[in-house]
């Protein structure tokens, strides 16, 4: 869990925070804050011509400015960046991490894998969200700790999930970002209610979306899985030996799969079958 302080002069960001973070705990002024971030509209003459937004972490700007209408998305990306660059008490894996019946399921996110869509669908069907972007594997106890945030979806996935789950609550669609159209979905209640409950990793599943493919869960040799997963760990090189040990221990404990699927319904069946 992280304590964040956000400063912004952009109405859309305030609205985004109200919409998505209304149920998060508000800290007292005396509490320790881990990360100070600012999402500000670029001032001066720039305000009148193709206005832009900047993200700053304690005075440092990690990204080039973006069009102003992408401010809420920039806040989310920036916050991910800030966490990935400071939270080295964890091995941070770029993946979705969800839980059911006490089993943690990690789904690394290669582009085109459909990880985000799968994750969004699963958490609307009984799985608890710990994170849709970053699995925080504790170096101390080998458990994965939650950091639930709004779930980001792109392009076609947005409508797919809206169709899939009538109760899903979405923010507005931001068109034409570098990643396409983006929208955020509010994480189901269970995510925030159980945000202090870590999970024991049980399954590592690399999803592959393939048109017309047969649904298939294929066991993955663990040594190979370790090599591949290391590429998905943001801070693997920073942690050095500690990171390798944590990752090797985790791989040893979990079942590793390559998962091919062609549509959501059968995909959910396939994933659910793991915990039956």
């Amino acid at each position, binding site marked *: 869990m992280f*304590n964040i302080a956000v400063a912004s002069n952009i109405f859309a960001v305030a609205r985004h925070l109200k919409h998505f973070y209304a149920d998060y705990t508000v800290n007292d002024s005396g509490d320790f804050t881990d990360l100070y971030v600012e999402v500000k509209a670029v001032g001066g003459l720039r305000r009148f011509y193709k206005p832009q937004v900047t993200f700053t972490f304690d*005075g440092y700007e990690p990204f080039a400015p973006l069009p102003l209408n992408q401010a809420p998305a920039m806040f989310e990306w920036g916050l991910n960046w800030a966490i990935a660059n400071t939270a080295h008490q964890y091995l941070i894996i770029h993946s979705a991490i969800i839980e059911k019946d006490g089993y943690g399921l990690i789904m690394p996110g290669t582009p085109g894998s459909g990880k985000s869509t799968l994750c969004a669908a699963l958490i609307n069907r009984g799985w608890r969200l710990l994170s849709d972007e970053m699995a925080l594997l504790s170096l101390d106890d080998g458990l994965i700790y939650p950091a639930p945030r709004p779930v980001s979806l792109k392009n076609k996935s947005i409508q797919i999930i809206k169709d899939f789950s009538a109760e899903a609550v979405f923010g507005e669609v931001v068109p034409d970002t570098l990643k396409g159209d983006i929208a955020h979905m509010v994480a189901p209640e269970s995510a925030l209610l159980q945000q202090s409950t870590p999970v024991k990793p049980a399954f590592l599943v690399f999803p592959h979306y393939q048109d017309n493919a047969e649904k298939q869960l294929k066991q993955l040799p663990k040594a190979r899985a370790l090599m591949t997963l290391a590429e998905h760990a943001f801070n693997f090189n920073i942690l050095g030996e500690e990171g390798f040990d944590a990752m090797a221990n985790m791989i040893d404990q979990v079942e590793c799969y390559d998962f091919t699927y062609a549509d959501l319904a059968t995909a959910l069946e396939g994933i659910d079958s793991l915990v039956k």
Partner: protein
Amino acid sequence: MLDDHLVVQFLRDYGQETLHTINFMEYPWETLIRQSRRVNLLSRIAFFLRELELLDSVPEQPRIHFINSIKLSDANARSAKVEVKAIHKALSAAEVDFVLLKGAAYVWSGVDAGKGRLFTDTDILVTKETLPAAERALAHNGWFTSSLDRYTQQFYREWMHEIPPMTHLKRQTTVDVHHTIIPPTSRLKPKPTKLWQQADAMQNMPGLFVLSPIDMIIHSATHLFHEGEFDQGLRDISDLDLLIRQGVVSEDKWQELLNRSEELDLVKPVYYALNFSYKILHTPVPDEIIARARKLSKMSYVSSKMMDMLFSRALATKHETSPVKGQGFARFLLYIRSHWLKMPVHLLIPHLCRKSWLRLTGQKDH
């Protein structure tokens, strides 16, 4: 003004060995972390806390930040060792000797200035004669000159008499190859050969050197007070503070430092270094040595007072928790000044205009 910056106070306490007396429960850790992160000193501060076995006295939440920042500097040190070994392998095959400079040198040689030190590029010094062979050897082993535009390449080679930084294809790390310690187009002309004469050879790595402790102080001083990059000003002052405390081991070493600065024609930056290290971090430099250095630098009282004011403002940590009036302007003036020191005037204006243009149109690398 500088006196109430938390980072400065902390470093002074470390230097005076009074760090253990702070009130660990009440201390504003959050502000210290934010300020020191901003000036790239978080890892160093964390290192000091660990060194003095005080980390456990820090409350848990801030403690995690300190521990994590040590992981960063440890990773940096590991990567630096890999780099230096690879550079050594490439250059020794071509029989090119080199001197390690700055961060990489501190970490490799184990001096105090390497504690919690973060750095990106590896800086090395070769002789002017071996520069082409060095460039070839590096290119042969996987480093390449990044695709800088033609103007910048020309700027480096013809006007500044340097080669552009080289980046390793696989590791994406950068080595900066110098043949002088300040740009050859500067007014001051320290003779690099003199540095070589006093350089220390590294065991088991024939052809690899680091500067002598006194020369490390002089080089660090020159880099800070000549180059104009004050964003990391306090970090550089901290380096100087540690280099001076460790390098000047006896009374006569002070005079040796002054003599050597004179010999290298670098008295002015060394004067500033001694003056500001003393003023900001209370480095134990005798008043009389500072006075002697100022006299040797031949600066008038008025200009020394003005530089005093400019540097004090510029060196302060730029952070919302520690605003300093006039800092932006002071840094700007010093930036212009450092370019003036580095380049003849007829080169200066076109170069600065181009840099501003690149920055304002959002093109990053300049």
